[in-house]
């Protein structure tokens, strides 16, 4: 059997073989590392083999249930988490475990949705109110029917044919025409119907 310092790559010793001095020294060194890791003082630098063994040891320890925190430690962590949840920033985090805060996007999203929805609803209600069915007023204009005597019209029916001997009697005809139109004008103005029949 050949001795090899590389424990992972070397030959595997027989179960009943006596441990070599180098193995004992290596075991003590590794035991120290494990002890320090358990108390949270793991050395920053170690060999790749030791790191791999340390991870395995940690997993085995956790699997055996020996990694539980003490009751006091658990309460401290829980209280710190609750304080952070209610916004108390003066809390001291207990160890490396803290409350992972929600991202700001996740905090704002529900309220943003609610706000946007309210805006949409308000806009819809406004549109409904503006377009609400009401009484539509249609304006129509009609021309009133008025008596002929109220209207401006040719004077022929009033004057009749003008005889040659009366050709120059325009003064008499204008008197007659004026009197007739004045009658119609007065009738319209004094009818009290605003000129509408």
């Amino acid at each position, binding site marked *: 059997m050949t001795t090899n310092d590389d424990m992972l790559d070397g030959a595997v010793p027989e179960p009943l073989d006596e441990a070599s001095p180098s193995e004992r020294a290596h075991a003590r060194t590794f035991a120290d590392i494990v002890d320090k890791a358990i108390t949270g003082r793991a050395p920053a630098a170690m060999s790749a083999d030791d790191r791999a063994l340390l991870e395995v040891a940690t997993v085995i320890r956790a699997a055996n249930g020996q990694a539980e925190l003490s009751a006091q430690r658990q309460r401290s962590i829980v209280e710190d988490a609750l304080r952070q949840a209610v916004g108390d920033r003066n809390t001291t985090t207990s160890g490396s475990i803290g409350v992972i805060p929600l991202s700001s996007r996740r905090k704002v999203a529900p309220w943003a949705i609610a706000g946007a929805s309210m805006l*949409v609803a308000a806009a819809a209600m406004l549109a409904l109110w503006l377009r609400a069915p009401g009484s539509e007023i249609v304006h*129509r204009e*009609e021309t009133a029917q008025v008596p002929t005597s109220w209207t*401006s019209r040719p004077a022929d029916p009033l004057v009749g*044919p003008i005889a040659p001997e009366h050709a*120059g009697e*325009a003064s008499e005809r204008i008197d007659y*025409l004026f009197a007739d139109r004045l009658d119609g*004008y007065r009738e319209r103005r004094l009818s009290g119907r605003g000129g509408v029949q």
Partner: protein
Amino acid sequence: MKSKSVIGVIIGVVLLSAGMFLAGRASVPADRAVTEVTRIKEPTDVIDESLMLALGQAKNFHRKAKVYLSDGKLDDAAAAVRQILSLAFPKGAPEADDVRLDARALLAKILISKGQVDEAMRVVDEGLASSQRESFFTANLYTVRGEIREVRANNLDAEDPSKTKSAPERRLAIEDYDKSIQINERLQKQLMEKR
């Protein structure tokens, strides 16, 4: 925190649904109650103040001319009658045409009295040219034009007793009288039919 988010989302969804529902309803034209308001307006051809004012002024100018004529002041009478021709009547008023044609007939008569036969003919011709329609006043103006032609013919007779020169003028005078008669007949027939 989680329950708040859920409530917010639920409220949002409810409001969004309500908004979409209402918007949908708003986009559908609903039955509207239609109220018709009819405004009765006066006809535009009623006798109004402006027509009465124009007629009143024409009446006064005629009265003035009559007084001048009774005093033998033919120039003043003619000037008074000429003012009637420039009176402003309401647009489209049939009385305007009638009053102006009648004034031209009187003016032509005054001018004939003054011996201004050609001027009288010009006044009558202008009136007939501007006439918008046939009327008893148009017919009267043709009658006056016939008279003017008779005066012209008589004046020609004084120059030429053989009446060779005056014959065409007399023929034209007869044509004018005929036109006057025809217009009068047509209008009388129309008036009778309307009754």
